[in-house]
């Protein structure tokens, strides 16, 4: 008798506890293994540094591993929503995986903060917000620089995957406006042992500049091959390539490589007037303290910015509903469309119902490899 009473009381207590402390639950799926591991590890690391309360509300993160596989990412998203009843999803490192999750987010009406630059229309993917800078925004910095230096023909070599396609499209996107022509569209894979054939084709076309659509250390292979073959033009990379490992692998041969990136790669060199400087500096300092000097990278910043955005949207959503309910998810989505001037590590976010990213030119800087370091170009 006594025992069953105790159990009943315990159960009631437990129920009461959950109702009183309705944590906001964040579901994350990332691939820290598999082909996207080199990026996924950084995305995942960042979550160790994320605050446990956002907008005055306790937050619980549930992080699942998808092995950089799109099907797994989709499955994880479904699991997070149906079993863990998450309020918002974040992930994953890879365009195919992110598209898969966006689909699930639409179906289940869950706000989704996407950590890869996917190009989806808000009217079609109402629940998806893209945290990273759109590739077009990033490549516009490269296009401006090329115009300033009289580049008329551009050779392109990129990954034979969705990332390569995105980069090619972004390079092509500005061709008309900035008066250049993309003359080659060569592809290679990260694990290729040689890009001689592709590089020879570019050399034969002899463009004024080359854009490499790779990421991480994968961007080094074509760069080294071009330099070995005596290519003299400027070689541009993209924001996926900007990390310390790229220089470690490329050594002297990648000196002078130019790439666009978010401000958090070079916060020390930013002028004090830059609104991003403080947030970016704080994040890189903490990140490098935990994961080693020189470990700063753009990807961890995307995770951080997703959490920043969420933090800005929670107070408005809390006014309308309790976490864990469909009403809260809808309120959160609406709030995400109306947050103003959210300063992240990568830029200042002003999302609108028409633009689910909301970053502007403040979210990109050009950096160049000088003496074995990425330095801000003034």
């Amino acid at each position, binding site marked *: 008798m006594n025992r069953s009473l105790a159990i009943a009381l315990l159960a009631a207590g437990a129920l009461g506890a959950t109702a009183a402390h309705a944590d906001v639950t964040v579901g994350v799926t990332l691939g820290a293994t598999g082909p996207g*591991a*080199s*990026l996924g590890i950084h995305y995942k690391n960042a979550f160790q540094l994320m605050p446990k309360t956002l907008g005055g509300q306790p937050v619980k993160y549930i992080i699942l591993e998808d092995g950089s596989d799109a099907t797994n990412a989709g499955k994880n998203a479904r699991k997070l929503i149906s079993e863990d009843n998450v309020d918002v999803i974040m992930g994953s490192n890879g365009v195919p995986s992110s598209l898969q999750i966006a689909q699930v987010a639409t179906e289940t009406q869950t706000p989704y903060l996407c950590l890869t630059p996917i190009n989806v229309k808000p009217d079609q993917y109402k629940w998806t917000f893209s945290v990273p800078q759109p590739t077009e925004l990033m490549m516009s910095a490269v296009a401006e620089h090329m115009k300033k230096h009289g580049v008329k023909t551009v050779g392109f070599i990129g990954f*034979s995957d969705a990332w390569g396609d995105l980069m090619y499209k972004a390079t092509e996107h500005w061709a008309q406006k900035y008066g250049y022509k993309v003359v080659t569209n060569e592809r290679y894979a990260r*694990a290729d*042992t*040689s890009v001689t*054939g*592709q590089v020879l084709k570019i050399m034969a076309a002899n463009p004024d500049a080359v854009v490499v659509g790779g990421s*991480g250390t994968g961007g080094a292979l074509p760069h080294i091959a071009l330099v070995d073959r005596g290519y003299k033009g400027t070689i541009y990379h993209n924001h996926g390539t900007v990390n310390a490992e790229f220089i470690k692998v490329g050594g002297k041969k990648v000196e002078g490589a130019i790439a666009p990136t978010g401000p958090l790669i070079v916060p020390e060199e930013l002028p004090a007037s830059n609104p991003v400087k403080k947030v970016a500096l704080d994040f890189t300092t903490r990140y490098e303290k935990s994961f080693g000097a020189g470990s700063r990278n753009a990807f961890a910043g995307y995770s951080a910015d997703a959490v920043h955005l969420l933090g800005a949207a929670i107070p408005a959503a809390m006014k309308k509903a309790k976490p864990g309910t469909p009403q809260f998810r809808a309120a959160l989505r609406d709030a995400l469309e109306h947050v103003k001037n959210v300063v992240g590590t990568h830029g200042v976010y002003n999302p609108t119902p028409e633009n689910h990213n909301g970053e502007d030119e403040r979210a990109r800087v050009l950096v160049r490899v000088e003496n074995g370091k990425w330095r801000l170009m003034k």
Partner: protein
Amino acid sequence: MNADIFLWLVQDGVTNGAIYALLALALLLVFAVTRVIFVPQGEFITYAALSLSLLEAGRTPGTIYILAVGGLAAAAIDGYAALRERAWRRLPRIAALYIVLPLAIAFLVAWAAPRKLDQWIQVLLVLAMVVPLGPIVYRIAFQPLANASVLVLFIVSMAVHYILSGLSLVFFGGEGLRSSPFWDARFKLGVVEISAQSLFVVAASLLLIVGLWLLFEHSIYGKALRATAINRVGARLVGIPTALTGQLSFLLAAFIGAVSGILISSITTLYYDTGFLIGLKGFVGAILGGMASYPLAAAGALVLGLLESFSSFWASAFKEVIVFTSIIPMLVWLSLRSRHVEEDEE
């Protein structure tokens, strides 16, 4: 395309083809002797190449932990068997081979790593770390199943591949590494410049191929390997220990993998999982050669290297498609030509 580009592409294709040829030989050797389609062959490449890069940077490669723990596991399996059979005299040998030797190598590497010794010594250290992994893998994963069907062995082989590549991610991280070339010279040959490193690759491949030929033709161990390859039961009847030939073939496979890894580590950026794809192309080369004779396998691998090089020039987006589709006609021809052989007919 002009002659200039043609020659460049041939040079590139031959360099890659030489690596694929080595791997094709290793895969063929292992398959002939143990009937294992050795998927993890590529992992030896990765381990060797990334260990070399780490040693160059003065860091201790995680390969030594795999070596030490793998050795202990193999010793436990062998030791248990010896104890059950009360064969006490086998114990010292087991302890020496599987415990003392791997641990000695591990300590030696841990001692040498921060000292950044000469590059040739680093190469020897890498060989000392990676080559013993071959017999250890055979002892743990394949020897207990020596009589299983090709399909079972293949599935085990996949499992070993996943385990080794998972460990590789843990110990080497997700980003790529590249080591510095042995000799940064370039030779002008008409219009084409040839790098010393690619000459090294081709020379080393030729040397290894000749070495293997000598081994098979002129040494008792080589003959034992050939005998096991031709007929396992027959070999056992004339007193050849098939477990030993299995270990020997894995030792050779690991050696070839390690040498390939050392050779390409300065030509390209390697990731924790790159070896798999290179090994796979070696396998395709072996199939192009009919999966039967060593010279044909080497020739098939060379053709594959050239095919890859030229398709990367003409249609880089479809390179992999072209390379892997090339085995289909060969498979059709093989299956039309051969009569069906039952699996368990030994």
